[in-house]
């Protein structure tokens, strides 16, 4: 009787199976008699939950005392609605303990620490909510320091849903007999609220990119994905954000504040908030609503919908990005009682600027980037004076600022140097040249080198675009098709348009940038003359062309046509939609009747065409071009 290998039971046939049974019973007999083996089996089953509890208690004992007391006090602070203590615990103590004990491991699981919480005179509901919040921190740690596996991803989604469900749909207290959900009585620091929304979207984005890699999935994962099609779906993420916005009525609040500002005895912000809805009155919901608008902007950009991203920011954008006198006089946050965190500031400007860039509205993009880069530079200087406790947070902000700088460098090269209304900030330009000098040089010279430089910077600085839909995991045939797709076949049959979203957007951007690459040369020639014939101009440009190609003599008419068409492109590129529009001042009898200045349009998508070039030219088709 040969010993069957235990790990190939798949091809075991009956003889061998019998043999194994015989073996096992032999071992059992060696102990006592076969019956005891069965008994032991039954006992083990009964003991399993007890074993689990024992394991938990062992794990709990392994948790350092410092951590245990932290958790208990943290819970107590949340119960007491003690915002300052919660803030300190969240921003300082938690990261310190993470670095000290859990820099490479997970925090203790929620089930393990649950027994600690019963000492705090909390109701079961309150303990439950604390565990939900704790899980939020737990999963955030897993995503940032460790690699989440598929279980982590699914569970973190469920946890987020539970948290948002609690915030949005809690039944009202026993006193109120209506069925309407009521606002919950929780106070959390603004930083935490921002992190909740930010992390939610981040986990969504990471999940989408992980999900689209079909080939690297194990069979188990394939099965789980086939069942769990609702997990991290685009609709549910959007639903959460839209619900928070609607519940907190943040847009109505801002509109009401704007109206209030014009009045004589304006009511304070809190009173305005109260008058809109009970949810708006609570800072928790106001803050969450406001952050959800910013989150929605980010999700739309990730899905490639730039106009919708700018559209959702209609009310908030005017307040945040300025250009109007709304909230300008007083300290913005105290006036509107809306939080201004550095992280939100930088993140929002990055996404808004990126939208403008993809809309080819380079002056608007540059203005947005300059605002935030100045802000970041001030922050950097201040950092040396007052230490920022959250180093990882600062790093993240610094990274976003770096990417913003790269986007600024690209826009700088795409806006033909020009009119005073797009005058570029020297300070920021110098910073950009220090960091990206090589690429900027290549980009401004034009030609194919420029496109390579644009591609490098774009891939570095762009957001991590995602596909809205998952590969068809629930359709086994389709998945099999994808898995077995031979790369050679794919390359043959596929269209030249890349399907990966990042490359799709890159290609669109390069097409726009590429159309402008001959323009710097053209412009420099036009600058030299007040009046120039097309023949002369085309011969200048020919010079460049003959060097590049091997043609002996380019047809004169063709070359001239080419030159004229390029000039139309130059004219076209010198105009841009801009939200801030210069206004001509009028001089009346030596006094300024109305001052020159700028006028800002309302929403972010609005704007008028302005000229961005200081070079004005027109073609007079009797064989001459006049320029100035």
């Amino acid at each position: 009787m040969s010993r069957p290998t235990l790990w190939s039971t798949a091809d075991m046939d009956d003889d061998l199976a019998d043999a194994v049974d015989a073996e096992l019973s032999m071992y059992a007999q060696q102990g006592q008699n076969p019956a005891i083996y069965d008994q032991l089996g039954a006992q083990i089953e009964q003991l399993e939950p007890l074993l689990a509890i024992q394991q938990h208690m062992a794990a709990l004992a392994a948790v350092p005392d410092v951590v245990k007391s932290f958790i208990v006090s943290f819970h107590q602070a949340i119960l007491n609605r003690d915002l300052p203590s919660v803030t300190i615990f969240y921003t300082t103590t938690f990261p310190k303990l993470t670095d000290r004990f859990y820099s490479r491991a997970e925090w203790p699981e929620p089930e393990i620490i649950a027994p600690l919480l019963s000492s705090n005179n909390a109701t079961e509901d309150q303990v439950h909510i604390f565990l939900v919040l704790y899980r939020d921190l737990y999963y955030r740690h897993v995503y940032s320091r460790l690699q989440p596996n598929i279980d982590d991803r699914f569970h973190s989604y469920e946890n987020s849903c539970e948290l948002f469900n609690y915030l949005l749909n809690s039944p009202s207290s026993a006193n109120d007999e209506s069925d309407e959900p009521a606002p919950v009585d929780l106070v959390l620091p603004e930083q935490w609220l921002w992190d909740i929304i930010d992390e939610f979207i981040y986990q969504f984005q990471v999940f989408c990119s992980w999900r689209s890699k079909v080939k690297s999935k194990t069979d188990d994962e394939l099965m789980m994905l086939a069942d769990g099609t609702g997990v991290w779906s685009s609709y549910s993420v959007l639903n959460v954000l839209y619900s928070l916005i609607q519940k907190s009525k943040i847009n109505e609040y801002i509109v009401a504040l704007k109206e209030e500002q014009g009045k004589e005895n304006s009511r304070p912000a809190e009173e305005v908030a109260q008058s809109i809805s009970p949810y708006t009155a609570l800072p928790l919901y106001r803050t969450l609503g406001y952050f959800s608008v910013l989150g929605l902007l980010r999700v739309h950009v990730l899905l490639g919908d730039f106009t919708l991203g700018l559209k959702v920011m209609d009310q908030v954008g005017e307040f945040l990005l300025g250009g109007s006198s709304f909230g300008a006089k007083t300290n913005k946050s105290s006036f509107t009682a809306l939080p201004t965190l550095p992280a939100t500031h930088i993140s929002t400007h990055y996404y808004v600027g990126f939208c403008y860039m993809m809309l080819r509205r380079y002056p608007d993009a540059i203005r947005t980037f300059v605002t935030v880069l100045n802000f970041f530079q001030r922050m950097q200087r201040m950092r040396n004076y007052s230490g920022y406790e959250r180093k990882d947070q600062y790093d993240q902000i610094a990274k976003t600022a770096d990417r913003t700088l790269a986007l600024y460098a690209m826009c700088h090269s795409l806006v033909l140097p020009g009119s005073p209304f797009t005058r570029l900030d020297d300070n920021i330009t110098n910073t950009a040249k220090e960091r990206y000098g090589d690429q900027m040089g290549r980009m401004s010279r034009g030609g194919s080198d420029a496109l390579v430089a644009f591609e490098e910077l774009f891939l570095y600085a762009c957001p991590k675009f995602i596909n809205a839909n998952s590969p068809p995991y629930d359709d086994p045939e389709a998945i099999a098709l994808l898995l077995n797709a031979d790369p050679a076949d794919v390359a043959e049959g596929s269209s030249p348009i890349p399907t990966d979203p990042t490359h799709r957007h890159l290609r669109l951007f390069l097409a726009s940038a590429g159309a402008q690459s001959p323009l710097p040369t053209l412009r420099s020639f036009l600058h030299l003359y007040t009046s120039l014939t097309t023949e002369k101009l085309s011969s200048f440009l020919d010079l460049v062309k003959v060097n590049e190609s091997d043609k002996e003599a380019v047809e004169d008419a063709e070359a001239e046509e080419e030159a004229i068409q390029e000039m139309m492109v130059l004219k076209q590129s010198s105009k841009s939609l801009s939200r801030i529009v210069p206004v001509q001042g009028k001089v009346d009898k030596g006094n300024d009747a109305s001052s020159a200045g700028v006028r800002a349009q309302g929403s972010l998508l609005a704007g008028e065409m302005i000229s961005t070039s200081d070079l004005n030219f027109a073609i007079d088709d009797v064989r001459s071009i006049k320029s100035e």
Partner: protein
Amino acid sequence: MAASWITPPTRTELIENLVSGVDRYNPSNVGILEDYLYHQIRSQEYDCLANLAILKLYQFNPDLYNPDVVINILIKALGASPLPDFNLCISLLDERPPNASLDEPDPLPVLLPVLHGLHHLLYRCRFPAFWRAYRSDQLESLRDNYTVECAGFEDSIREVVIRAVKSTFTRIGTDRLGLYLDSDSPEELKSYIDKLGWTLNSEGTVVNIPANLDNQIEAVVVQESIKLPQLTKVIAQAARS
């Protein structure tokens, strides 16, 4: 100018509510938006944001996908050059898993590079090349199946040309203009010029383009008037140190 792009005057209230509200995500509303697209096609109107809403619904619900609708949207967007409408539409066209839910083979992968090429020619103002490509045999299927249904497609392309020509030229030769507008005969060209309100010179060889903001040459003089109160802070600071 942007105001009419964001909210075209031809958009009805129903569509306005759909586009600006949360209902745009409801898959059952795709029919309304598609009907609106066909209305735009028949009556020479154009509403970019509503068409983008259709593409977004297709992005989230791949089973709603209708390649004819997508091609029509892209064709309409060609007429908006140099605005980035075409690019915005492409940004929303996600990868789709190969599915067998369509009755006929999907025409989009074949036509998409073609439309890309046409758009690129328009953006780079290569108008004669555009007309050559458009009239070529290769694009026969595009012309027969799609652009023939789109009322005024060629006119909308001509409007793109006029926009570019108007801002760059003060006078343009009739042959050149005819080449750009792809007009078959001098009479057609003349009637087109008359419709625009432009005038010809005495020999009928050069068209005068009316003066507008873009083709007038003036040096831009920037005068900044800084008032004293604005400088008080700076001066006070300097005086202190």
